[in-house]
């Protein structure tokens, strides 16, 4: 009984920890920057900046599904997903850019960022592994 109670406590604690997990902006290890500010992040997600300072192309990944991570990320940028989609649509329709690839899960984002040169994405902090670097923590 005691051990069951302990497991329940752990589970609830785990849920609480998970629900408050920080969102982090991650990048491929080839990216020269080690930190990024909000303004630069906005430029990257609005596709108005498309190269890192070493000249490598920035490859942007977005989360397809709504959720706490996506809400926290867009909230931090002060933009709604629809607003950014309109910006991407304008660039796409004028031939000046490609909308970021939207992936279904945070694990996929971590994998794609880890395996794509110049890639950037965002996930909750507990999904991060050693194959990517963290550029910014959104509190």
């Amino acid at each position: 009984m005691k051990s069951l109670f302990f497991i329940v406590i752990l589970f609830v604690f785990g849920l609480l920890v998970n629900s408050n997990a920080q969102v982090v902006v991650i990048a491929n290890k080839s990216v020269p920057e080690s930190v990024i500010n909000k303004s630069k992040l906005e430029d990257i997600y609005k596709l108005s900046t498309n190269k890192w300072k070493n000249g490598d192309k920035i490859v942007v990944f977005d989360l397809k599904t709504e959720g706490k991570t996506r809400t926290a990320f867009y909230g931090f940028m002060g933009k709604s997903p629809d607003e950014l989609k309109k910006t991407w649509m304008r660039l796409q329709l004028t031939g000046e850019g490609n909308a970021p690839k939207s992936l279904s899960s945070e694990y996929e984002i971590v994998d794609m960022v880890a395996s794509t040169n110049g890639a950037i994405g965002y996930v909750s902090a507990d999904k991060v592994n050693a194959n990517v670097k963290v550029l910014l923590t959104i509190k």
Partner: protein
Amino acid sequence: MKKYFSFLLLFVVSSVSAQSSDLQIFGYFQGYYNYFSKYNIEIPINPYLNNGSSIKTIKSEAKNSFLSQQLNLFLKKDFSGSYGEFTTFVNLELTSNYSSDNFWGAFNLQEAWLKYAYSDAFNVKFGAMIPTFNNLNEIKNRTPLLSYMFRPLVYETYVNGIISSEDFIPEQAFMQIYGKTDLTESVEFNYSAFVGNAEKSYVAQELSGIVLPGLDTSKFKSVGARVGLKFNDIKIGFSATYDRDNKNSIFNQSPLNSTNASGYYYAPLSGDLPRIRLGADLSFNIGKFTFESEFIVVKYTLADNQKSYLSNYREDIQHALVNTAGTIQQLSGAIVANPSDPANSVKILQLSQLTPFAEELANYVNQTSLVGKELDKLFYYAMLGYNVTDDLQVYGMYCYLQDKFDVRLEDKLDFYSIGATWAPLPTVSIKGQYSHQNIKVRNYNLNALLLGFSVYF
């Protein structure tokens, strides 16, 4: 030989190192129902040509129709290699219920260009493209990006019979350089400059010798540029173009330039008129509000004799027709009154020359019945939108237009519009718009209602 081999090797190496994206195919279409009320428009005319009345009233009945306004298909591919990054982009456009079977609408290669991106600060595009001018020109046909269906007047093909877009905005270019750079962390400077063919009226319509249809037959070219600043979501820009406007049909190919038979004769003048279009644009998003506005002024450089000729043209050509018709009437009357007069043979000869001339004049009077006294033009519009939710926007728009080359528009045309756009998905928009146009001095009032949708795929 060695040199050629090295060159070949370089080509192979660069080919091997080149990468390309998948070919992207995407597009959009917009369809709607439209209703246009009946209208009258009153234009001044020589009373002798209009049964004694100095006002001619043009009437149009109410119209309504469903319309597949346009479908655009894009093909896009990115390439990169040791020489940098390239993008190729093709825009195919089908408009107005296009059907080759029924001879409806049009199928156009709107854009086909190759872009070389050296850096954010320097890009160059070659091929057919819509040049940057103010804020709206480049995206005027991208219906998913526009809340409205009835666009600000000079961008609207609906009013092509009255307002020629090309008189206000450049429609096509062949080469454009452009780029942007950060002045400070929050202020961006952007620029573009283009060169292209002269306006459409200089382009060959049919095969003639070695000149193919679609080739620019003039020695003139269009050039233009825009400089802009962007501060967060606030954009401001200034644009200018320089080219020639083809008004030869009035300045040197009119019956007034060929004979003095009517009592009106002017030596032919150059009709290739230097034209400058100047534009300014301001747009921003603040909170739930969206604002966009543009200002365009079109200026011509005319010599004094050109100015004087144009300011009298409409009256003169109408008087010429009245005079010629009067002379024909007199001669005919004299022949009928005295059929045995030996001088009748001279009169008959005069009649045989005057009759086709009168027909030519009548054609010209019809064609040029709306020519004003000057050429300068002015247009501006402002649109204020409010995002009720992320998916629903309501807006109001006002346009002002004055075109002194058209007697209908030489005073001013006011255009008011209100509408709403609901986007159940970011790629689907349902749109509704009501607009009212009026020209007070011409007693012209038109109401329009449009209900439609736009889909991006």
